[in-house]
């Protein structure tokens, strides 16, 4: 009996040890990135363009603007469509169309980001004839779409049936009931899902490699190639110049902060605004 108990204890310790060990790389990476990147960040880093090779200083303003543009385009393409489709799924739970759409969402969610890049290339870059922020934004939108659909559906499924009845029984039309009763009750969850989606796609590089492509200069035209934080990190990280790598570390800190803040706000939204039924 004693042997069994000792084994029990050892097993538990092993489990704890492995779990903690799994978190070590996370901390090591975060500490390293911040150690390298934080000293780089200052006002001029945020407001200036990258300098040519050999010139000291410079910043990542163009990548910041680009990431904002790309996320905006992704949101515009995916959020309204995703919410609408999510409403359909939650209002028509058992229709064959819903089954088909749910499988589509699963597949889209599992699709590797590089494949999404290929799709945006085929659909937008080829017909337009050159790389553009638009195609990059759409690629990120395709990645966000399944997240928005799923979080909308899941959240609406949690809204109790009796609220819908209460509204309909007051003579409120069905569309208004959906838009004014169901959707507002689900909004915190949907917003939280969207924020999570945004912070995920903001860090994506692969779908942008041959869509937004990157740009050394500031660009405000969504039909032209545009830089983005992850693209800049990739390009400068792979470059042989220390000065560029320095910029890449700074950009890495910005990107991590962006993603983490998005994640944290998303959590806060879903917990603090939670509608109590």
């Amino acid at each position, binding site marked *: 009996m004693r042997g069994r*108990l000792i*084994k029990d204890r050892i*097993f538990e310790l*092993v*489990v704890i040890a492995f*779990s903690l*060990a*799994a*978190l070590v*790389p*996370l901390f090591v*990476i*975060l500490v*390293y*990135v911040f150690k390298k990147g934080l000293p780089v960040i200052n006002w001029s880093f945020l407001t200036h363009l990258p300098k040519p090779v050999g010139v000291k200083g410079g910043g990542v303003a163009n990548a910041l603007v680009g990431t904002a543009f790309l996320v905006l385009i992704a949101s515009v393409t995916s959020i309204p*469509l*995703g919410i*609408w*489709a999510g409403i*359909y799924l939650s*209002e028509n739970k058992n229709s064959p*169309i*819903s089954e*088909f759409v749910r*499988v*589509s969402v*699963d*597949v889209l969610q*599992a*699709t590797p*980001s*590089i494949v999404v890049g*290929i*799709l945006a*290339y*085929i*659909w937008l870059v080829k017909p337009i004839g050159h790389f553009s922020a638009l195609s990059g934004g759409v690629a990120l939108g395709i990645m966000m*779409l*399944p997240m928005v659909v799923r979080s909308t559906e899941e959240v609406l499924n949690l809204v109790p049936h009796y609220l819908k009845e209460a509204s309909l029984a007051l003579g409120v039309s*069905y*569309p208004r009931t*959906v838009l004014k009763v169901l959707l507002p009750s689900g909004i915190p969850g949907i917003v939280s899902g969207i924020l999570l989606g945004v912070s995920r796609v903001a*860090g994506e*590089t*692969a779908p942008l*490699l*041959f869509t937004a*492509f990157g740009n050394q200069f500031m660009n405000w035209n969504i039909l032209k190639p545009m830089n983005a934080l*992850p693209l800049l*990190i*990739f390009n400068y*990280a*792979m470059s042989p110049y220390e000065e560029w*790598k320095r910029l890449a*570390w700074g950009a*890495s800190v910005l990107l*991590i902060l962006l993603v*983490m803040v998005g*994640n944290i706000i998303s*959590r806060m939204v879903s917990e603090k605004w939670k509608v109590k039924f």
Partner: protein
Amino acid sequence: MKKRGAFNFSLLVAALAVGTVLIAAALSMTIASLPALRAFGLKFFFSPDWDPVSNKFGALPFLLGTLITSFLALFLSLPFSLSISILSGEYLKGKKISSLLKTLVDLIAAVPSVIYGFWGLEVLVPLVRKLEISLGVAPYGVGIFTASLILAVMIIPNAAALAREVIELVPSNLKEAAYALGATRTETLLKVTLPYARGGIMAGILLSLGRALGETMAVTMVIGNSNTIPKSLFSPANTMASVIANEFTEATGDLYYSSLIAIGLTLFVVTAIFGVVGRYVVNRMKIK
């Protein structure tokens, strides 16, 4: 009544549009890969020659590169992800610290892959190079082994999150029955809980494998970009995703372009199967 009709119709259109994205994706990639598949047939997947200069394209090196890195990463990550899921789904179930652990694990997944790649390039590659020197193999630093290490860290959250979910779903009366028979916690875990959650854990493994297969940036940055069949665990190689990332913008010839898309299509089909099967298993567990 009419308004309701129009509203419902708009919902239906949106839902169908989401489905259409998928169908359009499959169709347009299939069409774009046809030239390559026509030119090489099944040999596309079995030929080891990837030579843009003489317009010969075989994807075998990348298929192997992907399989080796993914399975190696899975193998390396499994003890960690299972431990995390057991710890938070069983030992710490319902405790506050469990949600802290969950948050930290989610954070691993939230770090953008390009940053893993950058860190790998700057920190891990020199370390592996030292290891290779001491082992007496060619000290590239970059290669399959380095890529697998990074991948392993990155996929821990996927398997862990799912496995924890299914472990939490194991009915407590089953476990109590085992305790009542005098089984220790470990015995209950190994002989009752884990076997019961087996399906869901497998699904988690499948989904994280899907993630590993498609992971691009971190791998691209540390795998060394070699288009030949890898000879050892330390050889530089390419995966399906990394070869697309590296060569797509340079693919000048039609056949070259088509071959890269054919690789993308393969990746798409494989991850789709993994994703759907994984989801299906998880959903069935939840209904049960």
